[in-house]
């Protein structure tokens, strides 16, 4: 957390005039009849803000995550419970329009992550003839640790015909390379890729959905939603303060994840460093998303011992096979009575482990998803895999190449969507905005 907060200001200190009512306070006040109109007076707003802060005794899960900082929030931030991830296509050819949208989005993101309405007027209290500048479904809800994390896809730099779309083609980082085809990929183009992504994570699904919905609304005419994905239930922990959660196979997932506390490893494995390539990405990170359908029903018919063989960990405690505790290092050398390794050559944990990948690691913060059922009575469910890293060419690509060839789990998986994005460093302050260094 400290990594991303170094230049943080209080979220409300930099808010534009008349913007200081939090959603919750606005409702309370309207009920009392003091200020049914938001933004009616700066002085009144300021009072509210102070009393709001003084009275802030909500749990951590309901609180706000600072939006400004050295790095974007939503990466090492302890993984929240809910996800709404969206990929946009940019539909304008006008660079100035795109930059103006990024500025408008940044202001809305700063407001929403602080628990406020997306716009300065708000969901209620504006002119009755005008559509509100916030959609309203998050009224009365706390910030819920909402984070909004933006990334830029390869197609923002050059289109499919190789044309430089916005005069930034020479700023495309080498690390933002298109992912290769992996064995078994069954990708659907309409839910893959995208020019710009925004990851919304929060502890309340309504807050995450509200954020994406409002960004999409603000972006009408400049961007168009290409695909989006809801996730419930984090499948990784990004901090040692968090327990390791379970994925839909019922196994603990993300035990060996990069964690916020591993400062040295984060520098080495997560954040783009000076000299890595494009300066605008220094302090940023590269994001790979994969929507991985799990064939739940056949997995559920698999014997426990086989499930554990496939994963390489015990289902109960999540300990590496042959060990007793989740956080013990797996022993890949030891052989059982049958002469075979205790952790099979094709076990997921072996193939994915840093020791087997020249030390390459990922910061994973994926989410379980269930998109209803598939018409054959099967859950349309799986893992929306999210991984941040310093360079996918050295991290995700080699790891996934091994997994796609050898992982015994592949029998139960289908990769249906794939995307890669360059997530710039954090927005420093109220004068900064998403994409400023890239387009500056």
């Amino acid at each position, binding site marked *: 957390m400290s990594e991303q907060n170094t230049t943080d200001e209080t979220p409300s200190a930099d808010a534009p005039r008349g913007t200081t009512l939090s959603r919750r306070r606005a409702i309370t006040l309207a009920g009392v009849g003091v200020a049914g*109109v938001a*933004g*009616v007076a700066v002085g009144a707003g300021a009072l509210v803000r102070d009393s709001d802060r003084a009275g802030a005794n909500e749990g951590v899960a309901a609180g706000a995550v600072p939006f400004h900082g050295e790095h974007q929030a939503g990466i090492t931030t302890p993984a929240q419970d809910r996800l709404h991830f969206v990929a946009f296509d940019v539909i304008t050819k006008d660079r100035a329009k795109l930059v103006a949208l990024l500025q408008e989005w940044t202001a809305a993101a700063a407001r929403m992550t602080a628990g406020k309405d997306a716009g300065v007027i708000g969901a209620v*209290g*504006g*002119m009755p*003839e*005008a559509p509100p500048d916030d959609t309203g479904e998050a009224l009365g809800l706390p910030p819920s640790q909402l984070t909004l994390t933006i990334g830029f896809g390869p197609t923002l730099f050059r289109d499919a015909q190789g044309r430089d779309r916005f005069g930034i083609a020479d700023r495309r980082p080498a690390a933002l390379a298109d992912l290769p085809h992996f064995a078994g990929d069954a990708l659907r183009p309409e839910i893959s890729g995208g020019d710009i992504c925004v990851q919304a994570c929060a502890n309340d699904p309504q807050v995450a959905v509200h954020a994406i919905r409002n960004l999409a609304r603000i972006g009408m*005419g400049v961007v*168009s939603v290409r695909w989006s994905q809801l996730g419930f239930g984090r499948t990784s922990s990004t901090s040692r303060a968090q327990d390791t959660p379970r994925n839909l196979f019922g196994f603990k997932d993300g035990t060996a994840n990069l964690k916020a506390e591993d400062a040295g490893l984060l520098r080495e494995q997560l954040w783009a460093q000076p000299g890595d390539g494009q300066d605008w990405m220094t302090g940023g990170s590269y994001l790979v998303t994969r929507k991985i359908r799990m064939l739940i029903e056949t997995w559920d018919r698999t014997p426990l011992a086989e499930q554990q063989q496939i994963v390489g960990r015990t289902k109960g405690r999540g300990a590496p096979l042959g060990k007793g505790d989740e956080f013990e290092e797996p022993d890949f050398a030891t052989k059982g009575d049958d002469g075979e390794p205790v952790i099979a050559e094709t076990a997921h944990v072996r193939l994915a482990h840093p020791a087997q990948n020249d030390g390459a690691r990922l910061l994973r913060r994926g989410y379980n998803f269930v998109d209803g059922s598939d018409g054959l009575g099967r859950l349309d469910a799986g893992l929306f895999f999210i991984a941040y890293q310093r360079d996918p060419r050295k991290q995700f690509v080699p790891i996934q190449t091994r997994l796609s060839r050898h992982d015994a789990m592949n029998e139960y998986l289908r990769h249906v969507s794939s995307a890669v994005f360059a997530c710039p460093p954090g927005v420093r302050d109220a004068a900064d905005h998403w994409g400023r260094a890239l387009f500056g």
Partner: protein
Amino acid sequence: MRTTRFVMLAATGVLAVTGVTACGADTDTKTAKAGNAVKVKATDTVCEVDVTELNAGQATFSVTNNGSKVNEFYVYAPGDRVMGEVENIAPGLSRELRVELPPGTYETACKPGMSGRGIRGALKVSGSAATVAPDAALSQATASYQRYVQSQTGALLTKTEEFVAAVKAGDVAKAKALFPVARTYWERIEPVAEIFGDLDPKIDGREEVVEEGMPFTGFHRIEKDLWATGDISKDGPIADQLLTDVKEIVAKANAEKLNPLQLANGAKELLDEVASGKITGEEDRYSHTDLWDFSANLEGSKAAIAALRPALEQRSPELVKQLDTEFANVEATLGKHRADDGWKLHTALSKTELKELSDSINALAEPISKVAAVVAR
């Protein structure tokens, strides 16, 4: 055919400007004449209106809620036609309703708890209707749009007559060719056509929106017979009824004067129509001639905005520029799908092409949604 949402808005009447001060944008004070400032004290059981006679023109009602329930205040014309309303007045709050009232008899109503008929009172407005419409550019808009409506209703009547004649003659091919043409004039003026309650569903109702006990009639019933079965031998009475209904609506539409706010909302609702019904191919599910309706809705929306243009140019030239750009963009995008004298079938467009159309409509609908507030201020 749309939902009743627009009908409600249209019936809401003239410039119900409430909460204007909320956005801090309005500094001009179009103060009502001294005699037209009305104080309303509402409680949970009483609705005390301090004036029961007014001069025609703009009236300003200051409604104070001294009760314990959330309240609403309405001004009704005969038949409970809403002339203006202010909702959600929390206990202890005051809110203003500004409404333009031509001469006539009205009723005021407070609705504690925001339900029921409310607590009614009589209101008489006398004087000259000429005092209405204080803004010259805006009053032009009403007249200008009325001329547009009159220009369309003539063609609607002619083409519907031809269509009906073809149906009754059993000429399937000719009826099929005339179906999208006649509908073009209908779809262009839907904002005004929809004001008249039952006529709209009778003329343009889709099968699923017809209520229990009400026969499925109108354009879409004949469309189904033309394309799904090809048997229109029993459609004579339905065609006759269609013509009767269209004649009735034409007469009413020609006489109707839409106020500027209705025009602004009408322009937006036409695009919502496109976004929700035409892009998806729901409107003309048998003939797949949705792009004809798409184009007509777009033209109708543009006509309503054109009527408002002088006022918009005075008040928000930036918005006018944006509207021009986005109208041109939708027209260019739609223009790719022309075929002969008309349009390609909905089924001939790829998903990518439909997405592109949808994006262009969204890009236009966004600035159009801001027009009403500009008109109202």
